[in-house]
């Protein structure tokens, strides 16, 4: 009897100390964690549609979308966050659209488990980001034929060369840049599956956003 009590008491004390301690740590850590998540999200949105403030427009069926408005209130574009199946595991990404949602203006993969050194070229590298921020224009011009610059194809580097958001995008292999149509995306060499997965997710995200907005507009 005494032993049982001793055992129970020990477990209760250990449990209470653990629970109490952890809730203190959690109270301290939680704001930082939320802040980190918010920062990652806001930085991505700010990068995809610069110079505006995001306002959440849709949060439904795993799809989140933001309208990004400039200081004067004009609509500068849309950012859609959506996830889907990649080569190994889920790919979580953000797509930027123009205000009319007819063209794709950017793409940022937030999370993936693709093959290192291969499928991971779906991510924006620091070089890409520098190029897109205007740090090196030449790089951008030369870049698009190279398999390692897959995500750059989703950005507008010249007027009238955006990928279309109307109709499904398609992955093609080995086409010169001049011959690519407005719905054609060049595949990453030896990582066709990752390329197709990204394009599929983008297609589904755009279609789903249209459907949701149509429902909202109709209701």
């Amino acid at each position, binding site marked *: 009897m005494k032993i049982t009590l001793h055992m129970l008491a020990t477990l209760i004390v250990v449990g209470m100390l*653990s*629970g109490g301690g*952890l809730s203190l*740590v959690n109270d301290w850590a939680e704001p930082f964690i939320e802040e980190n998540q918010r920062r990652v999200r806001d930085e991505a949105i700010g990068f995809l549609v610069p110079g505006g403030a995001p306002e959440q427009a849709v949060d439904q069926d795993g799809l989140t979308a933001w309208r990004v408005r400039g200081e004067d209130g004009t609509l500068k574009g849309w950012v859609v966050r959506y996830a889907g*199946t990649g*080569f*190994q*595991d*889920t790919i979580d990404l953000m797509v930027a659209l123009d205000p009319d949602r007819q063209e794709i203006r950017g793409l940022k993969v937030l999370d993936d488990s693709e093959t290192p050194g291969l499928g991971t070229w779906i991510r924006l590298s620091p070089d890409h980001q520098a190029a897109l921020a205007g740090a090196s224009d030449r790089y951008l011009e030369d870049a698009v034929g190279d398999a390692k610059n897959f995500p750059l194809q989703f950005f507008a580097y010249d007027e009238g060369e955006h990928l279309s958001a109307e109709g499904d995008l398609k992955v093609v292999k080995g086409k010169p840049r001049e011959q690519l149509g407005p719905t054609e995306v060049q595949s990453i060499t030896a990582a066709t599956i990752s390329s197709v997965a990204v394009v599929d997710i983008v297609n589904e995200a755009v279609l789903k956003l249209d459907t949701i907005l149509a429902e909202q507009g109709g209701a």
Partner: protein
Amino acid sequence: MELFGIFIAAAVINNFVLIQFLGICPFVGVSGKLSSAVSMGMAVTFVMTMASMVTFLIQHYILIPAGIGFLQTVAFILVIASLVQFVEMVIKKVSTGLYRALGIFLPLITTNCAIMGLCLFAVMKDYSFIQTLIFAIGAGAGFTLALVLMAGIREELELADVPETLQGAGITMIVAGILALGFMGFAGMKF
């Protein structure tokens, strides 16, 4: 079809041992003999299935509603540890044959990261109850598959002239590496 996809993904594409590195300790420790490998595989599959169901209920009906998600690790490991003890007791009472086959492996399972990993992944992937169940069975099947293949190979290698420095864990790791290369063939599989 979606459930079948989850099963195949857990069993071969993202094989728990060879691709996700979960449950390596029993993989190295118990793969010396084929008979014990089969028993260990069965024991792990059984506990995985039970643990995934219980932790699903705890996560969705206690931790989330109470807003104490940060206690997840503590709660899960306690549940798994007591579950293993409970299963051991029940099996001992119900069937001596089964106990003889699985019994000695059960205590080893508490610190088997495959079980804990499975419960954490199921929560991370936001699976429903049925999906969690299929995920657990698939992961258990994959664990058993890897363990049985390895045990067959290691029994064969007992006759082989493996360099002394590589005997035991060394050659096990190398075989696992080659198996992992082979399992890469399943990458991206979709039905």
